[in-house]
């Protein structure tokens, strides 16, 4: 027919060791899986989970108040100590902060993610990713200190409020109990603002990924069947974005629960869990109590995920 030789229906083995290796792996996919997964599973299982388990174990020991040495006997004394008023306050404070930060992050992130997923094209998509990622490339400490300057009494925010003749709003806010303070940089409000800023990308990106996967024709179908934009949001868009929101909230929630630097630099001097862990294992040398404090976020996250699953947050997966 043509000058080309027709190839055989079954090609011969490819020559060379690579050819043999790929033939072998094709016939034994489990070997390939073992090679790919072995090292990370070992790392995760032994080093990561192992050390976590060792830490948990520590929380069931106690410290001898007199000598300051660890008493390696199983006891719940440390947990009793954890639930004492002062320590329990720390837990409540941290969880409240983490929940508020998560809620507001989600509220701010959703419209941004929605715009990026539905409308941004080409150049604007690049601008979006750059805008989200750029803050992640600069040092965390630099950003926090920058915020301290912004929020300080002599900072740009106070200046802006003064120029806009809105200083009374700021002063009124700072006069509020608990969330107010001398200036934003030493108030819970300040801590909250910095948390929201720093964790925002971790909320936006998963929501954007979830929204990106919602086919446009589902929005059209809802509208076609008589769903107003609000109904479409409530019954179609939101449920389908929920796994992304939950994923983002896992980030913002757990990162806030564990952070000890932001509340140290911006905020009142009252402790958060991270700071308590830092103080207990460092200056106080109470490793068991430090360990018990770290158990708190783990348990809370476990409960959070359990409830999210119960409420059907992952049904759309």
């Amino acid at each position, binding site marked *: 027919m043509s000058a080309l030789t027709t190839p055989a229906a079954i090609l011969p083995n490819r020559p060379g060791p690579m050819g043999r290796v790929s033939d072998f792996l094709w016939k034994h996919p489990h070997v390939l899986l073992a090679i790919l997964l072995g090292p990370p599973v070992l790392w995760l299982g032994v080093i990561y989970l192992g050390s976590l388990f060792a830490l948990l174990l520590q929380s069931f020991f106690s410290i001898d108040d007199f000598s300051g040495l660890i008493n390696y006997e199983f006891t719940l004394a440390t947990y009793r100590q954890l639930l004492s008023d002062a320590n329990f306050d720390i837990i409540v404070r941290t969880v409240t902060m983490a929940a508020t930060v998560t809620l507001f992050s989600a509220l701010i992130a959703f419209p941004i993610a929605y715009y990026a997923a539905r409308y941004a094209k080409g150049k604007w998509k690049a601008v979006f990713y750059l805008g989200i990622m750029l803050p992640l490339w600069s040092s965390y400490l630099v950003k926090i200190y920058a915020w301290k300057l912004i929020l300080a009494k002599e900072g740009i925010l106070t200046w802006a409020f003064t120029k806009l003749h809105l200083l009374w709003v700021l002063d009124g806010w700072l006069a509020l109990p608990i969330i107010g303070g001398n200036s934003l940089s030493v108030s819970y409000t300040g801590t909250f603002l910095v948390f929201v800023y720093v964790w925002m990308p971790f909320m936006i990106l998963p929501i954007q990924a979830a929204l990106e996967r919602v086919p446009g024709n*589902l929005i*059209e179908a809802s509208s*076609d*069947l*008589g769903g*107003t934009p609000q109904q479409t949001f409530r*019954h179609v868009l939101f449920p389908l974005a929920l796994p992304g929101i939950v994923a983002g909230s896992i980030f913002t929630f757990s990162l806030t629960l564990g952070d000890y630097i932001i509340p140290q630099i911006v905020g009142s001097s009252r402790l958060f869990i991270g700071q308590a862990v830092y103080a207990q294992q460092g200056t106080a040398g109470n490793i068991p109590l430090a360990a018990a404090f770290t158990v708190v976020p783990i348990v809370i996250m476990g409960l959070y995920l359990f409830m999210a699953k119960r409420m059907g947050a992952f049904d759309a997966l």
Partner: protein
Amino acid sequence: MTAAVLFENVSRHFGAVKAVDAVDLEIAAGEFFAMLGPSGSGKTTCLRLMAGFEQPTHGHIEIFGETAEGVPPYRRSVNTVFQDYALFPHLSILDNVAYGLMVKGIGKEDRRKAAEDALAMVKLPGYGQRRPGQLSGGQRQRVALARALVNKPKVLLLDEPLGALDLKLREQMQEELKSLQKSLGITFVFVTHDQGEALSMADRIAVFNDGKIQQLGTPEDIYKRPQTRFVADFVGSSNVLSSATCAKLGVAAKAASLRPEAIAIGTSWAEQLSLPGTVTARSFLGATNRISIDCSGEKIIVASPAAMPVPDIGAAVQLAFSRNDLHLMEEA
């Protein structure tokens, strides 16, 4: 009587692509209207203009006498069966079907009943608790149908709603749809690639090509009297005879169409026209044999009943047909 759907010189352009180009259309209330055309000819875009997902670049659209431009889809009593189903993946089949009733605020029990009835109608009773991901393509298509029908819209737009079904189920659903359309009095706008489906179901057919309507008429019109070479070719592959061949037959025309099944091989009576030719190919299609014949350079297809003898390839034959079956066309 006001038309269900009225297009006046409607165009929808996407940049340089003229998806719908200067279309005039009037679909009567209660009519079963089919849109037939090759892929990319603008059928879906036409439906989207009716549903309100697209706005016309030019022209004017009315639905039951009311201006449709600028009216959002959720305010039109028009429902769509989407070409790609567009079922909600996070809802059960029952909730999918009941969605339109739910957003209209109909009570839980009523809409469950209506949705179950609709599912039974598309032969999927008891599938309500499944998720769309657990159904086959054809089952999803039927759910999409039930989801639109349950709302009893004034106009139902169906974008190839039976494309994923096997022949038997498709024929069943065709009958079901047709009788449903009759009993509910809903205006159907039905898009299909399948000319047989369009011919058997529709009251009227519009044949689309390149965003324009090539011909609009009853199935019989379209089938027997194609006005352009495109329609003749697309709908049941009519033969198109050139003006030279027409002249040989003693007919003056730019071109003429001739249906393959209107031609007999061999016998010709006095009142019939006849053409000599040579058999070049033949294939067995079940009920008929399809025979290609070369008539001095013009290829003519004959659909000969399977019971008739089949001439050998290379045999010289006489083609015979009645003058009434030869339809003159305005363009070549």
